[in-house]
């Protein structure tokens, strides 16, 4: 079974999906990610799906589940690099990925997380 690597960059975890996802590898990814968030105290998770060309409702639900798990552990999730065809397919499937933040690419995703963190700190100090 292929495992999706979870990379740590500062206090952000980056997951780049570059394989055809099977049910098993998705479940493993969810576990790995939860472990890593706790172990590293990450404040943000970026899921890069630039290489994903085909989606179904299962993958749509996977993204929502990962976001929900991360939120429980106080980390924001950003999905980056979604292709137009993928976005159209998800809309046609009726999945709007509520609760998942999105960004056009990895760079903007990191910027979004930094912005979110910045506003969190600002609201605490205020």
């Amino acid at each position, binding site marked *: 079974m292929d495992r999706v690597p979870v990379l740590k960059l500062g206090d952000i975890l980056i997951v780049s999906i570059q394989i055809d996802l099977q049910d098993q590898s998705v479940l493993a990814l969810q576990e790995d990610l939860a472990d890593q968030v706790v172990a590293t105290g990450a404040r943000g998770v970026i899921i890069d799906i630039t290489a994903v060309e085909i989606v179904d409702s299962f993958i749509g639900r996977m993204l929502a589940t990962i976001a929900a798990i991360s939120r429980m552990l106080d980390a924001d999730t950003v999905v980056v690099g979604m292709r137009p065809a993928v976005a159209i397919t998800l809309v046609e499937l009726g999945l709007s*990925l509520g609760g998942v933040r999105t960004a*056009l690419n990895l760079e903007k995703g990191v910027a979004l997380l930094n912005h979110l963190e910045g506003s969190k700190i600002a609201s605490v100090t205020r």
Partner: protein
Amino acid sequence: MSVSAEAGRRRIEELLQEHQERVFKRWLQLAASSAGHGDRGDLTGQLREIYQALKQSFTDSGDLSDLRGLLAELSRSRARHGFSPSETAVMVFGLKEALYESVEADGSPEALRGFIWFSRIIDDLGLFTIESYAVAREKVIIDQAEQLLELSTPVVKLWEGIVAVPLVGTLDSARTQVVMEKLLQTLVDTGSEHAVIDITGVPAVDTQVAQHLLKTVVAARLMGAECVISGIRPQIAHTIVTLGIEFGDIVTKASLADALAHALRESGVDFVRRRTHVAVRTEER
């Protein structure tokens, strides 16, 4: 009977060969009278080619592909000169009348039987010219529809990170699909986080069009971009509310200018109005 049909066919072939000049001249005369105007020399050349191809097809055991090619060409060129397809067909049918004079003069039962066979072939050919006219016409229409689809969906860059799609004309599923794909692709290519969909040029918004717009906005959101819908005219706003369409938390603006201002604000651009030239001039006076 079949022997007789075969004999009739041979007789017609002979007549076409023997009376070639007479039949051809008569045909040309009929064609020219129905044509009325146009380039006569051109017509003579084309008809002669068709006549030769017709004779050739009989000796080639009824292979009509060459002849059909010529007729398609004739149909096209006459359509270009503004003839209706039935005029072209009538011109082809004229060959029957031209040959009939020779058949009548011949008077033999073989020739009469053969003439029935011959006229069936000519009918087919005449109908073929109409068919090829329709095919050519259809191709033009399809090409134009495609061009229109391409032309009518420009995505323009308004500012760094802001693109706009001015929609003009009625929105149907096929067009919305093209617009949607093009907009989303542009968002990826330019890395724009804001898009403005301007519907000033859309004559009417019904539930289906609204549905298409909502889908586009949601798809753009999934990719990490925000859409603003602008150019909503008072009547359209009224229609949308009457139909009970919910735009939810999608930002809508009355004009493109408002939408641009909104997008600029969202992307963190501040703008201040400088003192205008008019004001300066009045101060000087």
